């Protein structure tokens, strides 16, 4: 294997054998008889990851993502094929699974290090770093069983990162702990990337995949469905997902075929609110929308529904006075001198057919907050006049 390749997988397959009883497995090992049903999770994958590259892995549930990551993290042996790796692997797959409840935080750091084969002299050097990153204070000297689950994952994340891996395997681990620590852990992963380490990243969040990955592999039923730049692949995957969703709802609603295919081809790519996240009563609130259509011949209209955070519907606004739209467009909706008084709100943007009957695509905006400025309660201004 050449020096600049971090991971190379050749014809890697994983076939799960499903046994009815554990003893059937024993019979197989000794008597070479077949007593199982097979499930193919990975089907002859060829993957090469360069050093310093961040490879994203996307796919639906059961596509084989976790199996692939586990094989790279060495907790699973492939049924056939060859896996070669340059450098040490650490995984954020099963955070804290090597920990022991009776050990103190410090002991667990050493214990985990030696499970992964790091000498304790080396761990001694890093332990301070782990402790300060995890930020669990005095608790580090108490047994793990006294930890809250948040502290537990903090410590687990910190240890997994402190082993200074050459190859880092991340599976949706960005949702670690509270918001503060989530940010911190994401930054940490980014800094690992900047140091030129290899990262394998698996997530359902296309945003993160786009943000982090240089190259993305889309797995489907244990095969590579698509491989390429992050942007290309995530877009194709999102389109596929939408199509699938549309096909599903088409089935249930028994729509005609024309609408079903139209539904799948128009997507709201992005919605941007300005100002954000705080809007003062009387400001001009602008909602910018980026709409992508694969089929320029399908007409559509756009609707926006303003909600209060408790999903109280305040107003629905459609482009009914405009001609139907065609093709990809950037449009915006403005609320001049916003007449909301106080509270937290959001909008639902909908792409619909010309009659406002079918919803092709839907996207909610983030929440925005209007601060209270009047002593009179209520959340909306409507024109009024007293006669006294």
């Amino acid at each position: 294997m050449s020096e600049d390749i971090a991971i190379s997988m050749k014809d890697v397959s994983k076939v799960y054998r499903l046994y009815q009883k554990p003893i059937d497995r024993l019979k197989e090992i000794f008597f070479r008889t077949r007593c199982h049903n097979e499930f193919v999770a990975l089907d002859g994958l060829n993957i090469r990851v360069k050093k310093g590259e961040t490879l994203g892995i996307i796919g639906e549930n059961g596509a084989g993502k976790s199996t692939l990551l586990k094989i790279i993290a060495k907790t699973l042996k492939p049924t056939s094929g060859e896996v070669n790796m340059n450098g040490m692997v650490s995984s954020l797959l099963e955070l804290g699974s090597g920990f022991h409840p009776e050990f103190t935080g410090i002991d667990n750091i050493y214990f985990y290090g030696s499970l992964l084969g790091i000498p304790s002299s080396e761990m001694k050097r890093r332990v301070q770093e782990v402790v300060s990153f995890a930020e669990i204070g005095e608790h580090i000297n108490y047994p793990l069983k006294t930890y809250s689950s948040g502290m537990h994952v903090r410590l687990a994340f910190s240890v997994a990162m402190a082993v200074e891996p050459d190859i880092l395997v991340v599976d949706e681990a960005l949702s670690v702990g509270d918001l503060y620590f989530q940010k911190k852990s994401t930054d940490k992963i980014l800094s690992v990337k900047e140091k030129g380490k290899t990262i394998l990243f698996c997530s359902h969040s296309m945003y993160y995949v786009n943000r982090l990955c240089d190259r993305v592999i889309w797995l489907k039923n244990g095969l590579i469905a698509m491989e390429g730049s992050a942007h290309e692949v995530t877009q194709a995957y999102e389109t596929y997902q939408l199509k699938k969703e549309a096909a599903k709802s088409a089935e249930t609603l028994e729509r005609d075929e024309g609408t079903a295919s139209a539904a799948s081809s128009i997507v709201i790519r992005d919605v941007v609110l300005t100002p954000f996240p705080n809007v003062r009563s009387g400001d001009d609130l602008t909602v910018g929308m980026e709409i992508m259509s694969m089929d320029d011949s399908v007409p559509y209209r756009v609707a926006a529904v303003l909600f209060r955070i408790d999903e109280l519907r305040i107003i629905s606004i459609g482009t009914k006075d405009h001609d139907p739209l065609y093709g990809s467009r950037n449009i915006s909706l403005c609320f001049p001198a916003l007449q909301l008084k106080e509270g937290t709100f959001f909008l639902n943007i909908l792409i619909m057919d010309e009659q406002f009957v079918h919803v092709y695509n839907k996207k909610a905006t983030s929440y925005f907050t209007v601060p209270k400025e009047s002593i009179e309660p209520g959340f909306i201004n409507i024109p009024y006049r007293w006669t006294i």
Partner: protein
Amino acid sequence: MINWLNLVKYFLIKDIKTRYAGSGLGMLWTIMMPVFQILLYWFVFSTVMRVRPHSNAQIPYVFFLLSTYFFWLAISEGISRSGMTIIENAEIVKKVPFPIIILPISITLSSYLQSMVGVIFFILAFTFSGLSHLSMFMIVPVLILQLLFSMGVGMLLAAIIPYMRDLQQIIGYVLQGMFFLSPILYSLETVPENVRGLTYLNPVTLYIESYHKIIFERTLPGLGYWGAMALCSGLFLFLGIKVFKKLNEGFADIL
């Protein structure tokens, strides 16, 4: 290699910590329960049944019992706990890549370490009665051979039991049989000559009898004994490692 030792050390501490977590008397339990057991045997055999289970009249029966009971305890604990170790640690076996064979090794060591507290207790009591002698140090090589034997059997069972969990039920009875069929409660000379050969089918007899020879007769066991012990330990260790390596890969599929 250093890391291996490190890992064994951590698993040892982990095992001992888990064992005595929240117990007030801690290590004392490892002596108290066996001593109580021995007093029971002593009472039943020499007071109630009034048998003379051993031939050496100068040695009180209770010392006879104490001399090998803790060694036996190490074997029986090591074996029965090794058998469960893979299932008990299923989480890390499945999720963390490390040499799994360390599990039965460290569980066996842990059982030995704890039983050795009892052995030291015996040696102290024996010395206090003015009966000990320097050549007793020869029990150390026997102990090492016995440890290797235990480890081998432990690995063997640790590997097989995840596949055949009901085996664990039988092990208790098999161990009990081995206990009564080895010269722990009685000396070998009291076994009728026509069946004495049979007791050698039990490998534990070899080790137990060697301890008796060293401690009470102040002689070394014959070359035949050493040869048989080395063969037995080597064989089981070899078999244990081989079978474990073979069955190792299937753990992830069945746990």
